[in-house]
């Protein structure tokens, strides 16, 4: 109910309502943006851009589905736009190509903090990061991801596989470091 009131206020351009809405959703959306960005600064840029779009298009929200989901979609789109613009300026060269080497076959216990896990995602090469985020977090299919990113389905699958492998390695390394530090 409170959400609806805030939304109404935002539609009428009430700054207070806008601020409150921002303060409510910003922490969650910041994490979404961090997942798609390499640095915190980049994530904040995406977040800012995303919220500006939210307030500009808030009239278009039709109460179909959750407002949070709607805002999240806008954030993801903003992140994708930034990715596309960066791709044009600087061709993404995946120097950390994971290849298809065998990852450690070691079941990694979920002992890492959210912040650490987020950090690992951020460290992925941009192309892998996009695919992994869209697949794992947004639940999109490879066909949809391929269309969105302008790649083939095969590339999407390959990138996902590489992303997972990289994450697996990163997590394993972290676990080893953690064990060494705290035996």
């Amino acid at each position, binding site marked *: 109910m409170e959400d609806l009131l805030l939304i109404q206020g935002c539609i009428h351009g009430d700054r207070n309502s806008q601020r409150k809405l*921002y303060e409510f959703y910003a922490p*969650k959306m910041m994490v979404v943006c961090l997942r798609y960005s390499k640095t915190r600064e980049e*994530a*904040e840029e995406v*977040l800012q851009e995303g919220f500006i779009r939210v307030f500009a298009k808030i009239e278009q929200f039709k109460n179909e589905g959750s407002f949070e989901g709607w805002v999240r979609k806008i954030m993801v789109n903003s992140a994708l736009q930034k990715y596309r613009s960066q791709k044009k300026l600087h061709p993404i060269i995946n120097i950390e190509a994971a290849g298809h080497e065998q*990852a450690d076959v070691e079941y990694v216990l979920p002992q890492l903090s959210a912040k650490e896990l*987020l950090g690992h995602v951020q460290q992925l090469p941009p192309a892998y990061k996009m695919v992994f985020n869209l697949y794992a*977090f947004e639940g999109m299919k490879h066909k949809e991801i391929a269309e969105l990113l302008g790649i083939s389905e095969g590339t999407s699958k390959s990138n996902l596989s590489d992303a997972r492998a990289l*994450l*697996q390695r990163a997590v394993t390394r972290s676990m080893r470091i953690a064990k060494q530090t705290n035996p």
Partner: protein
Amino acid sequence: MDKNLHDIDKLFTDGIDGYEEMPSSNVWEGIDHTLDKHGLDSIKKKYKNLKTYSAIVITGLIALLVYKSSFLTKKLQFSDSATVSKAQVKDSNNLKIISNENAEAASTVPLTKDITEQTTVHTNDNLVKPTPENKEGDKTIIQAGITPIDNHLKTPTPIKETPAVKIITNTTTNEKVINKRHVNAITVEQEKGVTKTLRKQHIENAYANNANAINVVTNNTNSFTKNNQLDNTNAIEKAIEEAYNLRLPQSTYFNKAAISYNSNQTYNTIQLITSLKPTISTEAMHKKASNKRSLAFLKPQISIMPYAAYESTNREIEDNPETPTVGMRPRREDDWKKVKQHEEEAIKTPVAGAKVEFLFLNKVSLTTGVGIASQYNKIKPKLVETELGRDGRIRYRFDCSAGSAYITAKTGNIPLIGDSALSGSSNSRLRYMQVPLLAGFHLQKNKFSFTPFIGATANILLDKQLSTEITYAGVKETQTVTEIEGLQSIYYTTNEGVTIGYKTTRRLSLQLTPYATQALSSMNKNAVVKSFPNGLGIQAGLKINLK
């Protein structure tokens, strides 16, 4: 492994899910600032339409006001005759006309209301001073700037009579030039019962009879007075307005006005006195028109003509005694003779380009344009000798009418000084950009046209090439060199010929041009020879008239 990899998805989604992180305060500041800007933009958008409509309405109102006020500034027609000589004036009807100097107004016809008898006319010239008995009497408001006598409206008393007809002289010194409009004859009589047409007739008659002053009779003098003084400008303006309405043809100046009243104050007369000079001289008008005609001369008919041509060129070869050396060695007397005597076949020169023609007064044409000409020169087999170049290399030197080319032996033994080789049938190609400037005289007979012309062309070197088959020490090589030394970057030729045209449509005509060219300057410099290309050619094109 697959399970692990899929589990990695779950690891990350479960691990990050629910995690929150607060962004820095800069983010909201940025959003806040952008929303302010957006807010302004939305306000601007909101009122944009309103502003647009308001602007349209205001513009419309202004236009209407301008239109209304421009009523008095409409142009009037001129007539050529603006002379009014001094003569007696007659009027047949309700128009009081004042004749000019030394004439008697013998035929003034009283106005219907007998204003003549009761009207006193006062001007600068003969200001009637109030007598004691009519101190309170008729107030005659005279020309602006002159103190009125009294306010006649309050005390209507009989006034001193003066002759109804006033002889007015021309005054040129105080002319008030009404030049903000094309002034025409001004005479208005606004008496009741007198139609506009009739008024016009009277006035025209009056002018025909050389009137130089016309009375404006009106019931309403308010518009001609200001602070109880005659508003000269206003009176004249009003009269001009009426003259425009009547579409009177003549133009005149008005330098004086006087107003007088009859004793009953039922009719008032504005007397406008002319200076008999047109506001705009017809002479000036004619001059302007003839200037326009003469300027038409400067507007040519323009046509473009894409064309193709074929020239057969011969190069006249002369000695070039200014060249002290030939390559690295001193020049010998027979160097140039070797080139001259070694016959070269006539050079084939295909040309393609486009021309622009400017035709003035349908007679004189000036043509320019751009064409690309390729001179293909076939050279018979000849012996070529080696020469030490400035770079220390020994190469075969090939001389021709264009210049000198150096051929490097690619295979076999390096030649020595004094060696020679046989060069088979060789071809040189020189490509030039031609920029002509031609003057012609255009003759048209029905659909055919003949334009003999003469002019000059600048030939600008674009590229050069020599291909030859050289045989030395048992080795045969085909070589193409793109460097021919001794060519000028530009040389000039004359062009003369005749263009025969056939008009197929209003805008298109087929053109055929036989022509001749002669070199005005040599195409070489610092070469063994001076070559002067002369030739005959035939050009065909399609002329398109743009105007």
